[in-house]
């Protein structure tokens, strides 16, 4: 049984040889093409355009002064910090899961793959709530943490933990189909010839999966930086202390600072565009 999320963004490993479309030859073909383009422009292109238009509508100087506001800069820093911590951890987790389920057969393997994908199905708000009921003062571990005077909820560690939850399947989802397709003959040969496990991983496995690994990391990074619902529950959103960029956008918007909100948004929109460009390049690298 294949998993739900496998199909969301097709894994770059298993791309079939693309069927080549024909040149549209009749008016009805052009009608379909034009309506597809028109709808995409209306519903995807225009919202993207509005972000940059509003961000720059008072000029470049105002744009940069909005970005350079201490609260926004701090939010940028916190967002980057979260990504720096979360992405490598989930890369290691993704590699472990992929190695486990593609290199060994064991009872419960399919169930494990389904379990690993659970965070994709959970609403971000629910993700945040679950952490509140684990580490919050009302939560399961709350009294214990209180007795040691440890505070996790509404701090940076809470943001990091909930981001780990939300993005934990991203790397595994890219690696599993690829490593499945590649098989383990190369690694078995290396082990038979006397290589250690680590040597095998770094000299055989890693070069084979590097682009897919990077691709998973890029997707993971985009989601970490953009996560809103889960982070808004656990951060407490103390201005300038635990506000990540998406939360800062909401705050500026609610303060009627529209230009500021769009200036902050434009940085995240730019990251989204860069993510797509990297996706395109990495897909080509992996398949070539």
């Amino acid at each position, binding site marked *: 049984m294949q*998993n*739900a999320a496998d*199909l*969301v*963004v*097709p894994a770059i490993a298993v791309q079939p040889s*693309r*069927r*080549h*479309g024909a*040149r*549209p030859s009749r008016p009805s*073909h052009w009608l*379909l*093409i034009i309506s597809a*383009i028109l*709808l*995409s422009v209306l*519903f*995807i292109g225009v*919202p993207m355009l*509005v*972000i940059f238009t509003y961000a720059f509508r008072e000029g470049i100087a105002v744009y940069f002064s909005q970005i350079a506001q201490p609260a926004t800069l701090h939010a940028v820093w916190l967002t980057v910090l979260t990504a720096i911590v979360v992405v490598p951890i989930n890369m*290691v987790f993704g590699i*472990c899961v992929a*190695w*486990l389920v593609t290199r*060994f057969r064991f009872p419960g393997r399919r169930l*494990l793959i389904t379990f*690993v994908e*659970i*965070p994709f*199905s*959970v*609403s*971000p*708000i*629910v993700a945040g*709530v*679950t952490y509140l*009921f*684990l580490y919050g003062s009302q939560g*399961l571990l709350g009294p214990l943490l209180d007795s040691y005077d440890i505070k996790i909820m509404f701090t940076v560690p809470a943001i990091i*933990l909930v981001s780990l*939850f939300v993005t934990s399947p991203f790397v595994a989802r890219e690696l599993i189909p690829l490593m499945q397709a590649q098989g383990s003959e190369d*690694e078995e040969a290396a*082990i*038979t010839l006397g290589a250690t*496990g680590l040597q095998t991983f770094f000299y055989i496995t890693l070069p084979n999966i590097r682009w897919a690994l990077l691709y998973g990391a890029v997707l993971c990074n985009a989601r970490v930086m*953009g996560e*809103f*619902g889960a982070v808004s529950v656990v951060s407490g959103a103390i201005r300038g202390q635990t506000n990540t*960029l*998406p939360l800062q*956008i*909401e705050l500026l918007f609610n303060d009627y600072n529209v230009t500021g909100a769009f200036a902050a948004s434009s940085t995240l*929109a730019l990251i989204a565009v860069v993510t*797509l460009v990297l*996706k*395109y390049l990495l897909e080509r690298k992996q398949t070539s």
Partner: protein
Amino acid sequence: MSLLSKSSTRGILPGFGLTMGVTLLYFAVIVALPLLAMLYKSVNLGWADFWTIISSERALATYRITVGAAALATVFNAVFGVLLAWVLVRYEFPGRRLLDAVIDLPFALPTAVAGLALVTVFSTNGWFGQYLEPLGIKVAYAPLGIALAMMFTSIPFVIRTVQPVLEDVATDAEEAARSLGATNWQIFARVIWPAIFPAFIAGCSLSFARSLGEFGAIVFISGNLPFETEVMSLLVFIRLDEYDYPAAAALATVMLVTAFVMLFVTNSIQAWQLRYAERS
């Protein structure tokens, strides 16, 4: 002896214990423990209290609004998705690659940014809103806005599930049908549609599931009025804000159970799709 039997079932590669340990520990700490903590909180409420919370008038209104808007968004994405998958696979035209890449933007763009952009475009003075509102179509701060936000954040699902299947539809079956005198429409209805249908349904259910849980994009555009434009995720958030933790736990549990049901449904559909693909 034990070494031998191990290698015969698991191959010669090392790292089984290590990766199993890391995977289970990480999954337990990061995913399972928080989920169980919330379920524990809900169970502790007792059935009577739990039922009172989740069947309150306000909660029922959020279910209606959320499911209604998600259904509307899914119907739109179903049509839009098939159209785009079709155009991207079947025709070669200038800008096709760009269009193919742009489709993923709603997944890459943070939901808060999407919500901000959509509310600005569709508000009374916005680029689209200024023309729509005189016609009596209110999108921002109305139920339609919720559907729009859900639609935007789940655009790629149907396209990306249907596209690879459509690429694989055998041209020989199509040509055979054509040589037997089938019209274009008959070929689509009898040959192509049955082949892509399971993938199409899988894409729709992914899109619907995602819409049920959406939060970031919706809070910007919905207006958040109880009984009118309040969705499930927002009510959970409001209960937290009011320090009404039991209510937040109960409502979040409803969302979690719904998500698991949708996951089961989607997985079943995809299992069916795979069987279907193998048979044909």
